[in-house]
């Protein structure tokens, strides 16, 4: 009964605040300073003692115990449940630990971290002039051209989670009307992107940020049409994983052969750290530029639509950029930084049940944390604070 009331209350809240004025304009993009690294972890990550790269081993122990300390009964899936933790400083592993039967060689479900890797594939495709950031989606994906309103949706809008499509995100909270559940498991599962494109428009594309798995799977389907099925099947493996030396990866597709970019990429913790390292180095890998200049800055810039998105309790927790998260806050909207005790330039990919990839350029640190948290027991700010405090120089 209480669930039904919660559902009703939730639906009422969703109806609020639809008065909007459109916001346009590209995010500011400038190039990060180029980094020079003699060692690239293409073959394997090097490991080193924390002290040799300016990190206190004792303080790092606190990071480790924060992540792995059991705070609830495992059979009831309570508390923090960390599966793996890898921390990289100056291009070398300084902390690596696994639990609950995971090892350095096991693939782990990344859930929504997959979205950020779809963004990487867009970076690569734009660098190679395969498509353009401001192309309307329907140029490449017919299902998105059903009327004039849908035709306004561009690739940039989709990357900024601002398509305006009326999706309902939420897994366990409101299963009945959740479009993400319908997309993954029931009505949409045969062809997720077509299902998503059929959703009505709730707001002018580009004006309202609404985190949506649908936006990602439409992006994934656009890539399928642009590359053709065979080249698309190889796209993540040949264009991204191979250059980084990622040999073992699973990327599941829906029944129509579109990568489930919203949810179903599986990587080892070490290999996900390589994706972080690519972004730490401004999209350059072993002196070859894979992502366009300015792409990483675009990744760290909050979606412009934030400025006109109606306030909700979720707004301050997100700071969504272009399929990643940033620690910038949105001062114009009075939205504070989500992780106030972490460096301002921290940015992240983040997934359901506690999957995290943090990149901190100012500290030259990359962190991967895998888990299976069924409760909100893992506090990112507290965790990042401990990481920051472990850095001596």
């Amino acid at each position, binding site marked *: 009964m209480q669930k039904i009331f919660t559902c009703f209350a939730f639906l009422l809240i969703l109806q609020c605040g639809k008065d909007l004025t459109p916001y346009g304009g590209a995010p500011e993009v400038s190039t990060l300073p180029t980094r020079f690294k003699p060692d690239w972890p293409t073959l394997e990550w090097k490991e080193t003692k924390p002290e040799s790269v300016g990190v206190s081993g004792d303080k790092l122990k606190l990071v480790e115990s924060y992540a792995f300390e059991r705070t609830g009964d495992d059979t009831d899936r309570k508390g923090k449940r960390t599966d793996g933790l890898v921390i990289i400083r100056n291009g070398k592993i300084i902390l690596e630990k696994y639990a609950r039967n995971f090892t350095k060689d096991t693939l782990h479900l990344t859930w929504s971290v997959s979205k950020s890797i779809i963004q990487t594939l867009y970076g690569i495709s734009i660098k190679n002039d395969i498509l353009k950031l401001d192309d309307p989606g329907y140029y490449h994906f017919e299902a998105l051209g059903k009327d004039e309103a849908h035709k306004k949706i561009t690739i940039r809008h989709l990357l900024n989670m601002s398509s305006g499509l009326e999706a309902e995100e939420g897994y366990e909270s409101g299963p009945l009307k959740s479009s993400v559940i319908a997309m993954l*498991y*029931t009505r949409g599962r045969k062809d997720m992107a077509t299902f998503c494109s059929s959703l009505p428009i709730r707001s002018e594309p580009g004006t309202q940020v609404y985190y949506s798995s649908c936006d990602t799977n439409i992006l994934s389907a656009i890539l399928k049409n642009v590359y053709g099925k065979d080249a698309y099947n190889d796209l993540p493996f040949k264009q991204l994983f191979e250059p980084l030396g990622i040999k073992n990866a699973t*990327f599941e597709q829906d029944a129509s052969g579109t990568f489930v970019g919203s949810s179903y990429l599986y990587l080892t913790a070490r290999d996900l750290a390589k994706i972080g390292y690519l972004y730490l180095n401004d999209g350059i890998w072993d002196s070859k530029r894979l992502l366009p200049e300015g792409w990483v800055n675009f990744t760290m810039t909050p979606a412009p639509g934030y400025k006109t998105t109606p306030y909700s309790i979720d707004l301050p927790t997100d700071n969504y950029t272009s399929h990643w998260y940033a620690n910038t806050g949105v001062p114009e909207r009075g939205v504070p930084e989500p992780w106030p005790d972490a460096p301002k330039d921290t940015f992240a990919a983040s997934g359901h049940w506690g999957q995290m990839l943090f990149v901190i350029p100012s500290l030259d640190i990359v962190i991967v944390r895998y888990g299976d948290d069924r409760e909100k027991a893992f506090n990112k700010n507290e965790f990042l604070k401990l990481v920051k405090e472990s850095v001596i120089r």
Partner: protein
Amino acid sequence: MKKNILRALLLFAVLIILWIQWNWKHLEAFPSIISSFYSKEFCSCYYVMKQSEEQCHNFARQWVPISQFGNDIEKKEVTVSGLGRTNKSIFLNEKQGCVLKND
């Protein structure tokens, strides 16, 4: 007095029926969630992440229990029933992992 209560009940019933009609596409699909989620996530847990059966049950279980479960290791198929619906996931290969089969 009695009339008023009856009227209120009737109104309530009409509202419920309207709500059901309005949400029919969601309600109709809903029961399938339990078995499709269980079979897909169990399949990936077992064949992609290579965890034990026990761990994968623990990973895939939801607040609504399932009524039937089968993991065919030879065919690499996971079949699950729950809330009166049955769904099957199949492991394709190392790169593509598992996918829900459509009837």
